[in-house]
């Protein structure tokens, strides 16, 4: 509601694999959720930085103590280093939208951060703690709720936000979603990576690859249903670059998330008042990086057909849908709301 040079509203989608930020000054960025510290003096001299964040960290990983500090969409438990890494990611995001931490005329930062739908209270508490010194006021909302708010899909809608760490579900019924309206599944992008890694290793026992290569293959060629063509990748086999066909393995891995996804969808749909179940079935919205798997909306829609028909659509901008929604919430919240949620 209140917008001035004194305040900067930001929406942040803190993701296990990628994090995005949308700010009220019009800036929008997405980064890889990686942080790395040079392992020794030589590495520090080469990278010329104390800490590297995002793609830069990933690209220089042999010289770094690399962290992917978010797990299942929240800060990994029990590690101070991971907490520091999340802080670095958040600082980096805030700096990207043009804010310097120690600037004299720094506006007050009002941040809305998306967290998994069923994040534990203790995880939310930790995240608030990490935000101290980075933002002035913080509101934590569930990721699918942020997407729904941004799209104004507040009534009779089911939002499924499929990221790397979690798939989050939220039924919107014209009110702030309760625990009964939301679900979080660990079957998301990372579980596809694990599965793909396993099936490729089974078929090609001598093939050499890393989890980063697996992720890159998935991001480029992932699909469910019928393939558009053969998926051929090049990777070392006993040290020799070799072309391998992973078409079937990729489908098996990507389709592994479908049973839990549809089961959870049915579970939530069955809890909607019968009068409105059809409305909700006709308004299933897919968001998040993993929703970009080719053929996924069609597969979900096919399943909805078995339940009596429905429509699944993918948001226009899956990468920024969460942070844009967060920004919309941040803008609409009143100054007194922000006062209540102040970190100071």
């Amino acid at each position, binding site marked *: 509601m209140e917008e001035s040079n004194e305040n900067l509203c930001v929406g942040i989608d803190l993701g296990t694999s990628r994090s995005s930020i949308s700010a009220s000054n019009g800036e929008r960025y997405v980064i890889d959720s990686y942080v790395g510290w040079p392992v020794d003096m030589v590495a520090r001299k080469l990278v010329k930085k104390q800490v590297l964040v995002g793609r830069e960290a990933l690209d220089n990983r042999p010289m770094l103590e690399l962290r992917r500090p978010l797990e299942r969409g929240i800060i990994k*438990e029990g590690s101070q280093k991971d907490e520091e890494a999340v802080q670095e990611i958040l600082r980096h995001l805030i700096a990207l939208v043009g804010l310097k931490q120690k600037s004299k005329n720094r506006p007050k930062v009002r941040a809305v951060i998306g967290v998994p739908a069923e994040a534990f209270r*203790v995880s939310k508490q930790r995240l608030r703690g990490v935000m101290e010194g980075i933002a002035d006021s913080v509101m934590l909302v569930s990721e699918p*709720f942020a997407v729904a*708010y941004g799209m104004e899909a507040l009534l009779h809608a089911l939002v499924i936000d499929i990221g790397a760490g979690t798939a989050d579900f939220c039924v919107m019924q014209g009110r*702030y979603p309760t625990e009964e309206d939301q679900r979080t599944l*660990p079957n998301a992008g990372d579980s596809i990576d694990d599965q793909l890694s396993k099936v490729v290793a089974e078929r090609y026992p001598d093939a050499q690859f890393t989890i980063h290569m697996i992720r890159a293959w998935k991001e480029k060629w992932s699909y469910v249903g019928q393939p558009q063509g053969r998926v051929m990748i090049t990777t070392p086999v006993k040290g020799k670059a070799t072309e391998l066909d992973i078409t079937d393995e990729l489908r098996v891995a990507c389709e592994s998330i479908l049973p839990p996804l549809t089961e959870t969808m049915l579970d939530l749909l069955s809890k909607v008042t019968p009068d409105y179940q059809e409305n909700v079935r006709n308004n299933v919205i897919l968001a998040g990086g993993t929703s970009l798997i080719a053929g996924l909306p069609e597969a979900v829609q096919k399943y909805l057909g078995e339940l009596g028909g429905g429509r699944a659509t993918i948001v226009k901008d899956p990468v920024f849908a969460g942070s844009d929604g967060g920004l919309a919430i941040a803008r609409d919240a009143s100054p007194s709301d922000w006062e209540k949620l102040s970190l100071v």
Partner: protein
Amino acid sequence: MARVEQTKLQVLRGAVQDNFDILHGIKTRPTTETPRPLRHWLWGLLLIAGMVYLGTPASMVSIGKASAPSAPAPVVASVRAASEPDVMVSRPQPLNREIFPLSLKRIVIDPGHGGVQTGAVAESGLTEKEVTLDVALRLRRLLTDAPFEVLLTRDSDKTLALEKRVEFANSNSADLFISIHVNWMEPRTIRGPETFFVGPTDDPLTMKLVSMENRDSKHSFVDLRHALDKIYIDARRNESRTLAKTIQGQLYGFLKQGNAALENRGVKTAPFAVLMGTQMPAILVEVSCLSNSEEVKLLTKGEYREKIALALLDGIRSYANNINGLQRKGT
């Protein structure tokens, strides 16, 4: 359009309130509080009454407050002493709870593990320490309207030694101690809650569980043996059994609804360190099994964790009503 704006306003209000509740719910309490002399006096009285009832020589009873004319417990004890031969009772006898002026005023909830001690970890990565704290925070919120005070041994993700938990409950003169845990059992088909109160065990599964949960205890074997010997004549053991039965009954009854495969693993005795050191009726409840994939699926739902907290609430209420009812009957 106006309707959309109105709905937005409404959901936004909900989001702010939810955040505010989180902030409010995690407000830290002081770790130690001023001891309440009256409560110490009551517990002292209880102990003295127990000793007299079990046939402790009168010379021992005379030390302390037993001579106070208004104290009800020695009166009951003296009736018993007069009607039976003046000999030491060779075996501990069950204590009649109606002789104690007990009432429930302060409960300590102990979310198991925390910090670097993750406890059991499910294949999905869900940790015991997360679940126990979440359930405990929910239980504290649900108990807000109850007529007794609720204290948590930890209300954030911090490492806390078993001895510190015991010390916290004792120094705060708690009337009840409830330690919340989540099981890990082989075979992984096992699922269902179980509740423990202090005592020996020869069940190999329980022994394994005890050694896991006691791993962080700094007690020596001799300390534990002494404590175990002591509890046979400890009045609080009977109360712990009653509390365990009540909680287990409510927990199983509540959770089996819509979850037919759930097994009632019952009430058991085991020498858990937190149960042996505490000076009040104390139980350790394993609310679910992280080794069972179906249970893990349920535990990731806030709805199910709320259900567990509600079941514990009902168990505590039922036990409290029983105690307070007895107290009313006695007055």
